[in-house]
């Protein structure tokens, strides 16, 4: 029995607050709490790498990776077929990292060897690999709806193992960012200085892309491969409206991402209780994050007008 059945937006948080004690002592977790946990963890991962992606102008590359990961998923499925597409997250991780790197190499091959302009190379690579991936996954799983699940996500199908995975990936991201914060900052803002000090900007680009790949895998069951991008970009862009200090940027992004996750789940529960409409929780979360961004942007624009 789900304790959140028929709760409104505010009651939701009441119930959550009351249940904190049981949850912290290892009580059984309700599905809404599981959704909040997974979304928050993915949002944390996204918030850690989003600001760097935006500052390095690599977000479209992240978009490309989130598409091509499908090929990795298909290949992982080839290696060990099973009825459940999501049975092999560890295998997916490896496959995703490999396809992520392969995407970068293929794009590079298109630009430098085949002499296609950069934007078209990126676009061509990820769209065609995605199309191929859809065909492969459809044929391999013999499931005609798989393509839809991959881009829509399904929070209701989340299991406790997804939370452990998301937590592991978030932990990996935290460790990498803590370890290499200085190097990332340096290679983002001053490539020449980084090279002269002996840090390879290319290495850190690839490391960042690897982080994107594993983050997308940790999130695609919950929100689908396309909406993961919203968790990567929306909080970071909102934070950029508030601050320009990199450390604050990351902290604010994490905060905004988590707020989005809580509000998204609570709001979709509220709509289900009050209106009896089951909205996609992933979609609602993205809408909430978008709304927060637009609100912050409007306040900022309004203020700058007022200041003049």
């Amino acid at each position, binding site marked *: 029995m789900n304790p959140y059945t028929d709760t409104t937006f505010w009651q939701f948080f009441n119930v959550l607050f009351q249940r904190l004690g049981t949850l912290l002592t290892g009580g059984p977790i309700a599905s809404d709490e599981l959704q909040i946990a997974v979304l928050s963890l993915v949002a944390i991962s996204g918030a850690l790498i989003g600001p760097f992606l935006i500052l390095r102008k690599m977000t479209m590359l992240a978009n490309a990776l989130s598409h091509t990961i499908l090929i990795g998923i298909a290949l992982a499925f080839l290696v060990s077929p099973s009825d459940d597409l999501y049975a092999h997250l560890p295998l997916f991780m490896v496959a995703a990292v490999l396809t992520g790197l392969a995407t970068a190499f293929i794009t590079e091959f298109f630009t430098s060897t085949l002499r296609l302009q950069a934007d078209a190379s990126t*676009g061509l690579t990820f769209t065609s690999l995605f199309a191929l991936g*859809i065909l492969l996954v459809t044929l391999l799983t013999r499931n005609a709806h798989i393509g839809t699940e991959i881009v829509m996500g399904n929070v209701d199908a989340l299991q406790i193992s997804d939370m452990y995975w998301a937590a592991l990936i978030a932990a990996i991201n935290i460790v990498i960012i803590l370890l290499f914060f200085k190097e990332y900052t340096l290679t983002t803002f001053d490539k020449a200085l980084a090279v002269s000090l002996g840090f390879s900007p290319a290495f850190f680009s690839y490391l960042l892309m690897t982080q994107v790949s594993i983050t997308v895998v940790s999130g695609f069951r919950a929100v689908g491969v396309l909406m993961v991008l*919203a968790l990567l970009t929306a909080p970071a862009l909102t934070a950029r409206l508030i601050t320009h200090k990199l450390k604050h940027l990351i902290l604010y992004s994490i905060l905004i991402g988590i707020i989005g996750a809580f509000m998204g789940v609570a709001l979709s529960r509220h709509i289900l209780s009050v209106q009896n409409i089951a909205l996609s929780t992933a979609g609602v979360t993205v809408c909430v994050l978008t709304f927060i961004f637009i609100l912050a942007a409007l306040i900022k624009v309004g203020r700058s007008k007022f200041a003049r």
Partner: protein
Amino acid sequence: MQIEWLSFLTDPVLRAPTLGCMLMGLAAGVVGVVIFLRKESLLGESLSHAAFPGAILGAFVGGLLGSDEDLSSLIILAGAAFTAYLSIFFIRWLVTRLRIHSDAALCFTLAATFGIGVTLASHMQFSDPALYRNMLALLYGQAATMTDFHVYLYGALAAVVILLAALFRKEIQITSFDRTYASSLMLPVKIIEAVFFALAVLAVIIGIRSVGVVLMSAMLIAPPAAARQFSNRFTTLLFLSGIFGILSGYLGNILSVTGSQELSLLFPNTRLSLPTGPVIVTISALLCFGALLFAPERGLASRAWRIARFRYKCLRENILKCIWRHTKDYSTTIPLLQEHLNATSLTLLIALHHLKQEGWLEKNGKGSWKLTSDGIVKAAKIVRLHRLWEVYLADYLGIGAERVHRSAEEMEHIITPELEASLTRLLKDPKVDPHKQPIPAADTGKTL
């Protein structure tokens, strides 16, 4: 299995999807050229995702009005166009007012609009499952559901696209390449850009039913990228790219229908099929890849072939030169050649045979080759070009005698007879090069 190529254009069931996809390819191909030349290939990605919520709103409104199949298709397209166009303003607002880099703005817009679309779609999941299934079909397209009405509709839209592209060809070209110049010509840059965006939106919405919002941007990239390999002229590009688009639509339909038939024979009870949208995109990507590899002028394979042929020609000339310079009796063997030339025995053997065919060499017993009298003149000519160039570099460009050899090694294979004549005149037919080596005479190849 037997594929009836023409039946796809005439069969009452297959005709509408095939023609619809071909029209989509045509429109996307034509508009794609402009997007491609403006280097905004990723704009299509954002626009197509932004069309998703609009299409769903359209389907919803159509459902409320209780309109028939055809009218609701129209409303879906109108809704899709509306939100796609809105997203352009949103992206622009992000870039200009909030100073967000366009890369992040595009990415955020596509993820956010897609999220909104998913939310709207999920609204239907339980209240109207049939409508919900139709909306999910917008993700990857569902060509099979096209009727003759869609063909007329897309035909009209494609005609509008081609008409606009043809009317504003010059203006779009100038504005896309050089905005400042366009403004200086008093062209209404803003209006032209609005026309361009309208074109992009039209191209995207035409593709919603055939390829779907997730993959549509590929159809705006692959055909123009393929066309670009064959031509530099804007009009030719428009034409070729349209052809590639039509071809992708046509072949994609055939492959998807025949492939699905094969699959249903293989797995009779899975209802598995090859989705048309992804197949069309894969085919257009393959066409593009083929063009990038094999296009006559710019293709990778063609470039590699040209380079290899030139290298082979240089090797043959170097063999002749080598025999002329390093042997007394103008005869040689492969091991002797390898002392001076960096090539494998097999390559040398092939080259030697080729030279024999051309009449510069003759067999001289087993494993030995000798210059013919023509060959001696030919080899002397190459040496002459080499040494003439050295004289030119040393005397006219003041380059040290010890540094001219390298450049001459390359130039000896390139200098044309006209260039040789001018050099001879300019240098007053010199007899020795900077290293005091004799220069063979122009016609007989004799040295003093």
